[in-house]
């Protein structure tokens, strides 16, 4: 195999996606059903493949349904960031000149702001415990997406700068096409490769940040089981007296495998496309 990383990543992602789509078929218990007579069962007992948690809920069901939540959060928030970033970067690069300078200066300033703090602020302030879960999820998606667009805008702008000098853009302009048409029909379609690659790398970042927020109790609300929340619950279940290891090991393993898959696929695609694209950073 020429690209073992890409293949491994694709296999991991394929497996996880298949499990999450087939959730009702592979799970034996509903993910939110509590049963206080079956608290903290270790893996493999009484048909609970991965054991149960404090409320007696089946961990395997929660993990499988949690994959739906986490993947959805990752993909939707990435789409939000993609729309903002591509629009911003394309306009900045295409208009150029002073507008470009001001827009990019703004991005530089935004880079130095502690964004995750704003996310935490918004999540704590606007959405107290009384807010409805659906509204909270919607806010989380928008806020997480809205803080991810900076690098996308930069990459897109750089690509547009070179694309707009190419012959086919000149030709379109000579034929009388306006700037909106040129951007939408001729430039943005040519950005797709870069955008897809960077989006693949944004999804794991968003999942990681959702996990981070869930750990602080500010992420996806109950009863939805996101992986971050499951791992956070598992971390809390570690005490010096007794360790319910399965509650941390399996969710952490699931997150790690998914992120590994996404990162491997994203990086594999990036290397295929252009080995010199900017590297990203972890966390905030």
């Amino acid at each position: 195999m020429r690209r073992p990383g890409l293949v491994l990543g694709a296999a991991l992602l394929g497996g996880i996606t298949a499990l999450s789509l087939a959730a009702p078929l592979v799970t034996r218990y509903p993910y939110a059903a509590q049963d206080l007579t079956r608290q903290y069962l270790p893996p493999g007992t009484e048909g609970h493949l991965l054991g149960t948690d404090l409320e007696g809920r089946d961990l395997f069901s929660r993990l499988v349904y949690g994959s739906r939540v986490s993947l959805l959060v990752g993909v939707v928030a990435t789409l939000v960031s993609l729309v903002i970033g591509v629009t911003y970067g394309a306009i900045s690069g295409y208009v150029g000149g002073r507008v470009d300078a001001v827009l990019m200066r703004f991005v530089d300033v935004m880079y130095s702001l502690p964004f995750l703090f704003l996310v935490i602020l918004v999540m704590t302030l606007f959405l107290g415990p009384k807010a409805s879960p659906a509204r909270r999820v919607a806010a989380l998606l928008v806020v997480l997406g809205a803080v991810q667009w900076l690098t996308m805008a930069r990459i897109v702008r750089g690509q547009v700068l070179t694309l707009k000098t190419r012959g086919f853009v000149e030709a379109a302009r000579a034929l009388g096409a306006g700037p909106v048409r040129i951007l939408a029909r001729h430039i943005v379609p040519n950005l797709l490769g870069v955008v897809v690659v960077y989006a693949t790398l944004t999804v794991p970042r968003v999942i990681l940040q959702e996990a981070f927020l869930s750990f602080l109790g500010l992420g996806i609300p109950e009863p939805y089981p996101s992986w971050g929340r499951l791992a956070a619950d598992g971390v809390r279940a570690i005490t010096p007296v007794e360790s319910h290891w399965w509650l941390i090991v399996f969710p952490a393993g699931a997150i790690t495998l998914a992120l590994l898959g996404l990162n491997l696929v994203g990086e594999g695609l990036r290397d295929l496309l252009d080995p010199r694209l900017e590297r990203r950073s972890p966390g905030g």
Partner: protein
Amino acid sequence: MSEEARDRGGERRGRGAPFVLRRLLGLLLTIFVIATLSFFLLRIAPGGPFDEERAVEASVRRAQERKYGLDRPLGEQYLRYLRALFLHGDLGPSSRYPGMTVNELIAESLPPSLALGGLALGLALVLGIGAGVAAGTRPGGPADRAILLLTVFGVSVPNFVLGAGLLWVFGLWLRVLPVAGLTGFSSLVLPAVTLGLPFAAVIARLARAGLVETLQEDYIRTARAKGLRERRVVWGHALRPALLPVVSFLGPAAAGILTGSVVIERIFALPGLGTHFVNSALNRDYSLVMGTVLLYSVLLVLLNFLSDLALGILDPRIRRPR
């Protein structure tokens, strides 16, 4: 060199004094923007510092609000806050901890947070550059492959999971390190390792990529042709330019370490700034939230400034006007 590093170089084409001056102005501007943004974010949000579970008598509540100036019009509160902040550096009284000012609370909780962040960053640099050199001197070799794989893991494990794992192994199983609280240097080891490792992974990749590129330069061939030992070629000639991407990553890394420390402080029960930040946001302690957010922003701007200075020292081409 990364695009970011080049951008910053361009921005600083002017000479010394104006550069420092411009950065200072930028710092003031950042403080102003953050103060304004967080002030109005907090006030628009529902809930106030005195909305307790138990109902307080209206007169008591009014008295409390008067004490903290919350009975004034919003515009006046805002101007007062800005005046106290810029003229006296006064961040106001805390509503959650009566009798304490935010300045006092910060003075108390900043040292552990700074120690943790500094240790984590130092660890990330040492480990990251070491691994990056080991991988980059023989690209494609076994060390390179192993390190590449490790770094993918490094950016794929959430830090609280890493923290819980380390805590379990070293704190509860081997019982060699303290698990919670602040009891001297040893209690900072696990938190700093947890916080620093993911950044070590990114730094390792940046250093590796920089080194692989630099080792193909002509002057490296010259150095080798002179008969210098490989060690000398790598550490003496190639490393300095190869580390430029690492230096320009320091700003974002510092930002990540600051945000990461919020969670790490919680796992290891460290009495630091991050703990105050989350609790104060939940308690609507307006002045403490703003104080911590402002402090984080100032730290970030300063660290970005330092990383730019270091970039200029490492690469004289950026310093001189072209």
